[in-house]
């Protein structure tokens, strides 16, 4: 791994000030460090943000669950408050990677990276999340821009993610047996006024499947999406699954999610 300068920031302001076009924020490092080791990414400065106290912790208010950006997956998985408010969110966290990844990896890191097969982006879309940064609040639907791309600007730091508590929800993942990343994952959430069907792993970026969401808004039953033939032309195709298989899996996982709600 090429050398860099390591900084540990004490607050968001300092972290943001240290940022440049040749730097990255370091939280759990579960993607950043392997990417740097493999030479896929190089930075002059790594700015460690996990010692910023304000960025860790979970708060539940009447309508939302707010999770600090540097909160680890294990903390979300074990949180009694999250389990009570949005059980599907704690079970999503419990299904990420392996125990060692969950002991280090963070929610902010996951969504900032926006891996096309990551779990948390689907939760953000399904649960109408608002991403709080040190500069502004961004709706999840405007945050995930494309493969590994987000609306974040240089030096902009995610501070927390605010999830809307749904009436009911479920996340169903068909994991790659080796990496536990989603071959396809579908997060279905029924809110008072709308239904979201967030899909990860199928395309180059997480998305809300409007066709299924519309069908489920009319009748929230797996029978209303049964046999739906999704367009697979822009779906991922690789050694793990063809585009056609992924299209079929999206419907299967969505049905499972509706039934589990």
């Amino acid at each position, binding site marked *: 791994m*090429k050398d860099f300068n*390591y900084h*540990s920031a004490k607050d968001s302001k300092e972290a943001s000030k240290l940022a440049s076009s040749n730097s990255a924020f370091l939280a759990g*490092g*579960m993607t950043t460090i*392997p990417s740097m*080791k493999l030479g896929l990414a190089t930075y002059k400065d790594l700015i460690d943000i996990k010692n910023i106290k304000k960025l860790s912790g979970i708060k539940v208010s009447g309508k939302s669950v707010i999770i600090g950006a540097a909160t680890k997956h294990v903390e979300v998985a074990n949180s009694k408050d999250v389990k009570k408010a949005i059980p599907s969110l704690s079970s999503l966290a419990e299904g990420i990677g392996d*125990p060692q*990844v969950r*002991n280090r990896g963070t929610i902010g890191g996951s969504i900032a990276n926006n891996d096309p097969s990551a779990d948390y982006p689907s939760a953000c879309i399904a649960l109408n999340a608002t991403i709080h940064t040190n500069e502004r609040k961004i709706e999840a639907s405007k945050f995930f821009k494309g493969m590994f791309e987000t609306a974040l600007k240089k030096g902009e730091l995610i501070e927390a993610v605010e999830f809307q508590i749904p009436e009911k929800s479920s996340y169903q993942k068909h994991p790659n047996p080796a990496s536990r990343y989603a071959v396809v994952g579908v997060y279905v959430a029924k809110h008072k006024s709308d239904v979201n069907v967030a899909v990860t792993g199928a395309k180059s970026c997480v998305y809300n499947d409007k066709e299924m969401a519309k069908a489920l808004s009319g009748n929230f039953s797996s029978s209303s999406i049964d046999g739906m033939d999704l367009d697979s032309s822009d779906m991922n195709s690789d050694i793990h699954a063809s585009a056609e298989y992924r299209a079929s899996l999206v419907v299967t996982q969505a049905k499972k999610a509706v039934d589990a709600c």
Partner: protein
Amino acid sequence: MGKISLEVNGRKVEKEASDNTLLSTFLREHLQLTGTHIGCDTSQCGACVVHVDGNSLKSCTALAADVNGSKVTTIEGLETNGKMHPMQEAFKKLHGLQCGFCTPGMVMSAVDLLQKNKKPSDTEIRDWLEGNICRCTGYQNIVSAVKEAATKM
């Protein structure tokens, strides 16, 4: 370059290391604690698992700098007065290893499991060891060893 201060297996250590030093490199090359193995070096195999402040992590995917000030336990830190830890004893007794390369990480990960779940089921043991790969044993005896250790810890 920066100063890394850790408490490793109960002993305070302080060494200069470049900022890109991985915890696994720091343990093996700066402290000569070569019990921690580097297998895949891409955070898949789990041979490098150690405990940092009581939780298991893959030391090939952490910087020495970002665990600065922590308490680290490696496989060398498990024994007491020359006597093997119950988990090591159980792996030996039940043939939970063949070539032994994955064993340090396997043992450290399993010890962390029992810290959090005193009586894990077979499924819970297998789920927990998700991030530890063994190419020899077929895992059966590893699961038996962890169950045996659970009765002794």
